[in-house]
C-alpha cells in the first residue's frame, strides 16, 4: 500500500521555473499559475532545447510569467511584446520565441502589433491569457470585458462590445488558433506544444479566472467558482464558425473551446536571408493534427 501524501519542499516543475522567486505575486484562485504550468510542460515536451526557448511578456499580471519561467525571458513594455519578439526571432531564427501576455496587453494597447505580426505570419507563438479585465491595475475595463460587466471603470456596466479574439486572429491570418480555459489543462498543454512545433504565427487564447478583478465584481465568485463555470458552460467545437464564438460570460452563455484553425501559409522571411516562396492565402480552417483534437474537460 502506498503512503498518503508525501510532504516535500520542491516541485518537479521547479527546474523550469525560477523557483527562487516563488511564491509568485498572483492572488489565490488566479488562473495564471495553471496557464504557466501548461506552458512550462509544453516547453519541456517540445522538440526544441530549453535553451532555445525565449519567453517575451508585456506588462500585466500575465506579463509576470516571463519572470517566473527559467528560460531566457523578457518583460518588456506594455503592448510591445510582439514587436520585441519579432526582433529576437528575425535576428536569430534558431530561437523559439513565445509571447505570453494578457488580453489588455496584446489586444488593447498592443492590438496593432497582433494585427501585423499575424498578417506577416511571423514565426512566433502567442499565448494570450484572457481574464476579461486589466488585472494588474486593479480590475478595469479591457477589450474582452463582456458587455454590461462591472469593472472599476464601468461602474454602471460596460457599454462596449467585447472582442471575439479567435475570430479576429483568424481573420488576420494566424496559422493556428485555439482557445482553452485553465481548467482544460491537458488540451491547453497539447495545444501549446503543438503551436510551439508549428511554423508560423500560432495563437492560443486561455480563459482564466481573475477573482479580484472580474469574478467577484461580476458575481462569478472566487477562482474556484469561475472554474466551475468553465466546467459547466464549456463546449468543445473545433469547427465552430468563428464569428459565433464571442463570449459574454452570462450565466447561461456557452464558452466555445477548441483548436479552431490549423492551416499553412508561407512564413515571413525577410528578403535576403532566403528568397520566400510564392505565398498563397489559405483561408480554410482545418484542424489537422489529431493530437490536438479536443477532448472533454476532466
Amino acid at each position: 500500500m502506498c503512503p498518503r501524501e508525501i510532504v516535500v519542499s520542491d516541485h518537479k516543475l521547479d527546474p523550469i521555473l525560477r523557483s527562487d522567486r516563488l511564491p509568485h505575486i498572483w492572488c489565490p484562485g488566479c488562473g495564471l499559475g495553471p496557464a504557466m504550468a501548461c506552458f512550462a510542460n509544453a516547453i519541456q515536451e517540445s522538440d526544441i532545447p530549453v535553451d532555445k526557448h525565449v519567453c517575451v511578456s508585456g506588462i500585466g499580471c500575465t506579463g509576470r510569467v516571463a519572470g517566473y519561467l527559467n528560460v531566457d525571458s523578457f518583460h518588456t513594455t506594455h503592448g510591445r511584446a510582439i514587436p520585441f519578439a519579432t526582433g529576437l526571432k528575425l535576428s536569430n531564427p534558431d530561437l523559439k520565441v513565445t509571447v505570453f501576455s494578457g488580453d489588455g496587453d496584446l489586444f488593447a494597447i498592443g492590438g496593432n502589433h497582433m494585427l501585423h505580426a499575424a498578417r506577416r505570419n511571423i514565426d512566433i507563438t502567442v499565448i494570450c491569457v484572457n481574464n476579461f479585465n486589466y488585472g494588474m491595475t486593479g480590475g478595469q475595463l479591457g477589450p474582452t470585458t463582456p458587455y454590461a460587466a462591472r469593472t472599476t471603470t464601468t461602474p454602471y456596466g460596460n457599454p462596449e462590445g467585447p472582442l471575439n479574439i479567435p475570430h479576429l486572429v483568424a481573420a488576420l491570418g494566424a496559422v493556428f488558433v485555439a482557445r482553452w480555459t485553465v481548467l482544460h489543462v491537458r488540451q491547453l498543454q497539447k495545444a501549446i506544444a503543438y503551436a510551439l512545433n508549428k511554423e508560423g504565427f500560432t495563437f492560443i487564447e486561455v480563459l482564466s479566472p481573475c477573482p479580484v478583478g472580474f469574478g467577484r465584481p461580476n458575481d462569478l465568485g472566487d477562482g474556484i467558482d469561475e472554474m466551475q463555470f468553465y466546467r459547466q458552460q464549456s463546449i468543445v467545437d473545433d469547427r465552430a464558425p468563428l464569428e459565433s464564438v464571442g463570449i459574454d460570460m452570462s450565466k447561461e452563455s456557452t464558452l466555445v473551446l477548441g483548436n479552431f484553425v490549423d492551416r499553412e501559409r508561407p512564413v515571413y522571411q525577410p528578403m535576403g536571408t532566403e528568397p520566400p516562396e510564392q505565398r498563397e492565402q489559405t483561408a480554410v480552417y482545418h484542424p489537422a493534427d489529431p493530437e490536438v483534437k479536443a477532448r472533454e474537460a476532466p
Partner: protein
Amino acid sequence: MSENKEDRHVLTGRHFMNGDTACAEGAMAAGCSFFGGYPITPSTEIAERLARRLPEVGGVYIQMEDELASIASVLGASWTGARSMTATSGPGFSLMQENIGLGAFTETPCVIVNVQRGGPSTGLPTLVSQADMMQARWGSHGDYPVVAYCPASCQEMFDLTVLAFNMADRLRTPVFVMADEAIGHMTERVVIPDKSGIEHVVRKRPHAGPMDGLLPYEAEGSMVPPMPRVGRGYRIHVTGLTHDERGYPATDAATHDQLVRRLAGKLTRFAPEIIRIEEVQMEDAEVVLVAYGSTSRSARHAVTILREEGLPVGMLRLITAWPFPGDRIAQLAERGCRFVVPELNLGQMALEVERYARQPTTRVNHAGGQSLTPDQIAEVAREAMTCAREKSWSAITS
C-alpha cells in the same frame, strides 16, 4: 562588386552620396545586421538604402507597422547579439520614447538616428531644424543615460554612425545620431576605408563560467555589465521594472536609486571617451560660437568671415551633444570667453552652455525651415564681440 557576402558590408571607396545614404553605409560598415523602421521624411532614404543593402549581406530589414514597433524590434534584435538600429524623425522619435527608456534601463545597445525636421508636430516635414536636441536628453520618463552625436557632413554621417554603434556596445546603451535634414539630404564626397580601417568595439560578453549563476546586471567594477546573448543557456531575465543584478524585479527604493545612479554614472565615467568636440581657431578666441550639425557649417563660415575682419572669434563644435561637454565650456568661461550659440530652434543647447558658463549666452535662433546664414551668425558675433569688449554683455542677452 564581389559576390562574397562579407565584402559587401563595407562599401570601400570614394563616393558622392547623400547624408542619409552615408548613414546607412556607416551602419553597414559597422556590421549592423538588423534594421526595424518606419518611413518618415527626411530619414526615409536610410531605410530605403538598408532595404537594399542588408539583404545583400544576410541582414534583416523589416518595415514595422509603426515606430513603437520599430524600436521594440530593434531592442529585441540586440539581445541576440546583433547590431541593430532604426532611423526616424521628430514624430517617430516622439513615439519611440517609451521604449527608448526600456532600452536605456535594460542596457540594450542599439543606434537610433533622428534626422531632425521642423517641429513641433508634423511641422515642416521636408525642412531642416535642430529642435529635438532636448528631447533626445529628456524625451522618456525618468532619469536615464543618453549619448547623442551630431554629424555635420555626409562623411560624419558615416563616421558617427560607426562610432555610435561602437559606443552603444561599449556602454551597453542606446546611442542617438541626431542629424538634421540639411545634412541628411545634402550630397557630398564620402570616403569609406576598407574593412580594416573601420573601428569595431566588441560587446563585452560574460566570462566563461557557470551559466546559471550569471548576474547580467553586475557591473563588475567597470559600471558596464557584460551582456549575454539569448539562446546560449544563460536563462537571463530582462525587465523594464527596477531590477537587481540578477535582472529580477525589485520593488525597493534602494535598488532603484543604485541602478538609476549607476546608469547615469556610466556616462560620467566614460565621458572622456564619449565626448568629441572640434575647436576651430580657439587659441585666442574671445567670442566662441558653440554650434553643431548643419548650423556649424554656417558658423565655421562665419568664423572665416570674422577672422578676415581681424576679430578673435572661434568655434567649438559639439560633435557629442550628450553628455554635454560642459567642462570645456566652463574652462573657456573661466578664460573669459563669451558664447554665441546659433541653433535651428528657440535655444536648446544654449541652455546647457549657460549653465556651465554661468553667464547668459547670445543666441542666434531660427525655429527651422532654413539654415542660418553665415552672415546672420557673423553679425550677432560681431555685436557680441563689441559688447564683450565693452563689458556690456548683459545688454544684449535676454
